[in-house]
């Protein structure tokens, strides 16, 4: 189409600024929080726990968020969707960050596992597991070896399958417009790879990975809703991230075929999956509240406390519900809002922040107990990850055409009408 997109100076400034802030926060953590000292059992060195808990929260959250955009590409491909083709390069660009964040996440997880951080994962403590029938029963799944191997496989598969999807899309730029037969074959090949990705996504993000990475922090507790709830959280944030980059590019005069019709559909995803997230959040909460089993209610008591004694996370817990349910429900419900570039930007930022809070309250109560903090360090690490995402996405956007001009469904996307 038109000339290759070049990043504006302000984007680069923000990217390196955020990474700079993040690196400072990381340095602060290394120097002040003593990450390699061990937390004594039952108190003592909260600093080192805080360092690893914050890194765990941010790396897992941002990795799953960028990975969600590849899931979006794959499900729309499998559904023979046409409307998203005009903006398809944006989720592709976001998913190209998976390898970088994947490696970072893997390093963090390995440091926790092989650094024997029993303050993060209680099940790493062999002595405790031996005398604990519940943890002992789970040790076939919750053990360092399985954790390492399965995490490595998961990250590698997201990386490779995502790379395959991206390279199939980029290949089309070199040829001309496809004729009917070639187009049909290309769509079929795409669908097969998308299905493989989706199946593996089901086995990882929608089930085992959240069990291993996050749910095992509260190792005695379990919930069958947990993985879906995590998935919904990251998918809705992923769609918000796609919306932000689409709006950014549109503001720079790129993505000529994207109109408010496409924005409307992205907005619908943000709305629908906010409600879906709430559905899972509430189902998990209500079943535990209703059956009132001590081993299950423990999870919520750690967060909101009991009637007489409010827990330290009560405010965040309900803020979570307001940011991620009430705001999207009431604001994004209106058609005019989903078609308004400014309002979608505001809502996207709100949703991404809201789910970051959600992950915060998933990780902190089990690791930091009542000592969690939300200080510049926490936000600095988040800035580091946002900066890396901006850097990776910017790299992809400047090195490839922004419209998949030979995609067989491009016309369908251009005339798309909601």
């Amino acid at each position, binding site marked *: 189409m038109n000339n290759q997109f070049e990043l504006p100076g302000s984007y680069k400034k923000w990217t390196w600024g955020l990474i700079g802030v993040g690196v400072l926060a990381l340095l602060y953590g290394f120097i002040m929080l003593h990450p390699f000292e061990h937390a004594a059992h039952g108190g003592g060195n909260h600093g080192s726990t805080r360092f690893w808990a914050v890194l765990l929260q941010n790396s897992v959250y941002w990795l799953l968020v960028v990975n969600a955009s590849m899931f979006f590409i794959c499900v729309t491909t499998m559904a023979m969707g046409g409307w998203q083709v005009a903006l398809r390069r944006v989720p592709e660009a976001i998913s190209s960050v998976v390898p970088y964040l994947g490696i970072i996440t893997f390093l963090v997880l390995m440091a926790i596992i092989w650094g024997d951080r029993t303050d993060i994962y209680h099940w790493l403590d062999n002595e405790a597991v031996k005398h604990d029938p519940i943890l002992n029963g789970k040790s076939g799944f919750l053990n360092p070896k399985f954790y390492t191997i399965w995490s490595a496989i998961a990250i590698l598969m997201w990386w490779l399958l995502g790379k395959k999807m991206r390279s199939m899309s980029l290949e089309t730029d070199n040829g001309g417009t496809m004729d009917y037969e070639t187009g049909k074959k290309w769509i079929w090949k795409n669908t097969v790879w998308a299905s493989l990705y989706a199946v593996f996504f089901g086995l990882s993000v929608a089930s085992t990975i959240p069990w291993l990475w996050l749910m095992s922090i509260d190792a005695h507790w379990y919930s069958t809703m947990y993985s879906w709830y995590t998935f919904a959280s990251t998918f809705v944030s992923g769609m918000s991230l796609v919306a932000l980059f689409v709006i950014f590019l549109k503001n720079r005069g790129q993505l000529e075929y994207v109109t408010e019709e496409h924005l409307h559909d992205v907005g619908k995803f943000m709305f629908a999956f906010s409600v879906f997230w709430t559905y899972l959040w509430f189902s998990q909460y209500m079943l535990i509240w*209703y059956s009132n089993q001590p081993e299950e209610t423990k999870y919520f008591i750690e967060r909101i406390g009991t009637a007489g004694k409010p827990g330290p996370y009560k405010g965040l817990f309900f803020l979570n519900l307001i940011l991620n349910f009430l705001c999207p429900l009431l604001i994004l419900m209106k*058609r005019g809002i989903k078609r308004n570039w400014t309002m979608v930007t505001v809502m996207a930022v709100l949703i991404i922040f809201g789910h970051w809070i959600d992950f915060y309250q998933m990780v902190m109560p089990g690791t930091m107990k009542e000592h969690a903090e939300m200080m510049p360090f926490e936000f600095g690490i988040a800035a580091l990850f946002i900066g890396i995402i901006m850097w990776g996405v910017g790299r992809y956007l400047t090195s490839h055409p922004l419209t998949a001009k030979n995609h067989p469904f491009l016309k369908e996307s251009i005339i798309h*009408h909601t």
Partner: protein
Amino acid sequence: MAGGIKKFVVGSFDDEAVLFPAVKNVRKAGYKIHDVYTPFPVHGLDHAMGLRETSLHTAGFIYAITGTTTALSFMSWVFTKDWPLNIGGKPHFALPAWIPITFELTVLFSAVGMVLTFCYLCQLSPFVKKHHFHARATDDLFVMAIECTDKTNDAEVQTFLEKAGAKEINIQHAETGWWIGRYDREQKLYREEKGY
């Protein structure tokens, strides 16, 4: 019979692609389109005809919050004032347990309310009859009815429709509102067939 009898020039088209420019040109020429009847929903026709956006969804939202309020107020009255029961040691004001029912009533009120409102707006109901401009509007013809006002010259409209690509053109005097009863008791309906 709310609308009263009016005179219409009715043009029938057999192609969507011809219909769209015809609608556009008829509006540009300043004629008053009464309605366009199609065998299936035609995407974008409402915009071409210049119809305003429907307010049905606003009605739906109002029905929905009515449902929410009904469910929450009824349950809280029953379980805290009228007939408090100890259920599994839960508090009387057991909000989480009420959410599913609140949700169901919200959906029920908005769904039923919107269906009824839709039927009302389209004047659809058992036993209610409306004039049909062309029987084949439910089969394969796109039927455009142009209302004749004092200033309309029917002959001119007919020529106009013919040029726009209409396959059949006639003039009808028809009831615009609805009535309850039978089609054969309808007003004396006559057509001026034109033999196109």
